[in-house]
């Protein structure tokens, strides 16, 4: 018998205000013979303070949708609404404004930093972005120290260091310190723990959840790990071949999966003390 119990009564309706929603969002790459539909008419609604997981295997379009949400690539078709209004990122100035509200943590902490810039520069950028450009130096140092101590790092030990002098876990924590300084409305975390060892993983997740509680931030987890999705999220979106095949509350989707794909994803989670059935992989 599976460890995950089906519970059909566990259906919830979120009444919090919407912060990011999309209708018919589509992304097409190439044309003619090379035309690829990476994301195919997806609808979603993310609420303030909610933790959402977008789960899918490699190539399902998770990263493409995350880049569209971040405004790093254009949307071919459909509309994304930010805080109830259609998102406008037509100029650099408007994009900059949008990015004050949405930020990201990437999968690989080693490639997230510009290796030619010192750590101080990364944190100073965040202070400047929040309008703290003209703050006195002492105040800036205080803010950076505060952000570092939030993620259990000592700013005094990091100042004047280059990113490659830190460990992967330290770098990822520094990324969270960056989010702490920026205080965005939405955080998009693209597999933030997949490159981190198991011990640091719990710490990183714990810090993200703590940060969510502190600034009432929406967190969108992009992950292939359905176990992690169930553990941390309020709602789950299951993605297959560019489409959301199933979505809803975490309990509802994981405990009473309707789509075949979801069932397969759940059955693929390896369980300790049980033999893993590789025939379904």
């Amino acid at each position, binding site marked *: 018998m599976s460890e995950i119990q089906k519970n059909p009564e566990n259906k919830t309706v979120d009444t919090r205000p919407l912060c990011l929603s999309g209708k018919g969002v589509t992304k097409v790459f190439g044309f003619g013979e090379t035309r690829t539909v990476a994301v195919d008419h997806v609808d979603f609604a993310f609420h303030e303070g909610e933790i959402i997981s977008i789960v899918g295997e490699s190539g399902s379009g998770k990263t493409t949708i995350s*880049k569209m949400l*971040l405004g*790093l690539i254009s949307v071919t078709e459909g509309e994304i609404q930010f805080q109830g209004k259609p998102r406008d990122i037509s100029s*650099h100035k408007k*994009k*900059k404004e949008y*990015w*004050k509200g949405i*930020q*990201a943590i*990437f*999968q*690989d902490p080693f*490639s*997230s*930093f*510009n*290796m*030619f*810039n010192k750590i101080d520069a990364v944190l100073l*950028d*965040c202070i400047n*972005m929040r309008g703290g450009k003209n703050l006195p130096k002492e105040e800036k140092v205080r803010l950076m120290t505060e952000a570092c101590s939030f993620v259990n790092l000592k700013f005094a030990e990091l100042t004047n260091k280059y990113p490659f002098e830190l460990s992967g876990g330290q770098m990822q924590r520094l990324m969270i310190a960056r989010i702490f300084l920026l205080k965005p409305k939405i955080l998009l975390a693209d597999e933030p723990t997949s490159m981190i060892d198991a011990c640091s993983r719990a710490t990183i997740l714990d810090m993200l959840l703590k940060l969510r509680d502190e600034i009432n931030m929406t967190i969108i987890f992009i992950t292939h790990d359905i176990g992690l999705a169930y553990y941390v999220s309020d709602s789950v979106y299951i993605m297959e071949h560019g489409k959301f095949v199933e979505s809803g509350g975490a309990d509802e989707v994981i405990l009473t999966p309707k789509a075949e794909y979801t069932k397969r994803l759940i059955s693929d989670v390896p369980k300790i003390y049980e033999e893993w059935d590789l025939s379904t992989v």
Partner: protein
Amino acid sequence: MLNTIKQVFHSPKFVTGFVIFMVMLLTIIIYPIIVTADPLEMIGNGNFFKPGTYVNTSETISAKQYTFNVDVSQASKLDRQLDDTQRTKMADWLVRFGGVDESEIDTSDSVALVELWKNNYSKDVDQTGLIAADKKYFVRLDTKIDAMLASSGIIIAQKDEEGTLSEQSTVEDNSYVNINDLQTSRTLILGTDNFGRDTLTELVSAAKNSLKIGLIAGSIATVIGLVLGLLSGYLGGIIDNIITFVTNLFTVIPSFVLLVLISYSVGQGSRGIYLVAIIIGCTSWTWTTRSVRSQVISLRNRDHVNLSKLSGHSLFRIIMTDILPYIASYVVMALILQISSGILSEAQLSMLGLGPATTESATLGLMMNWATLYSAHLNGSWWAYFPVIFTVALIAFSLNLMNTGLDQVFNPQLRD
């Protein structure tokens, strides 16, 4: 940064290339300070003087004479005075009209040859088939040989008002002068070129001009290539399509043909060193554009670039701080190769007569062009072209060696 420089100077290939290049550079800088003469001054009246020390003949005669007790044998005198053409002609006459068998004649043994000549030559022999001018030539040669055999010393005579010669002094066969006594000796290490210019001084000045052309052409090509490559790679979309189209167009047309056509259409009059450098630079950027573009494409989707965008940085700032530092080593290597190929392109163009149209400053290509026009390679004047080829090769070799050294430092896969 300091660490990278240290690493670079630990690469034997880079250091070798760097040392060769610096030696050449220092020579180019220091030589004109020591030899202040105009590098293109025509010091020789005539072309292709052999390398060596030249002394003034009249000064030699009036200089203090030292008599050495050495045996000035007839053999050495004949050896010195009979040249190869005269020997061959003598042998030819002897076989045709003197009735001497070819196997008896050895043109390298001047004493035996002169003996055979004296025994067999007579102007009265039937010389059918020989033109009058040649007959006279052999009479003159015979008289000259007589003089060589008879003479002992050279008499210096002076003509008085009535036209009679009176002996002033005699230069004996065993008299010498000390070269240090002479005021007007001139050493030409590499002889003179077709215009009678000192080849070494000209070579140093030509190397300077060629390096200048290489540096200007290389910088232009690198700047154009870098800017287009960065824009095309980073922006993508329609701009990438347009730039790639233009780049492909320039790649398909062989750049050397383009270079020749542009140089030709610019016209002989206005083609100076700088214009040629600019033309070379403007036709050789395609390679840099393509390689920079591919590097940038692989960088533009990296997380650190995305993060920089999310931090609200401008396009210019992202390119300057998040893209350029990552490809800087690559660009330096491209620049070195472009300098090297710029120098070679100038040499190629000049060989075709499409290089800088000037006689006021020399370039390595022009020196080769002049040497070829005056058939230096046919008349054995190796000093007019070989040092030039060697210099071109050495510059290209040192630059390429530095490039390989840098490549090994920046690309760990290539380390030995």
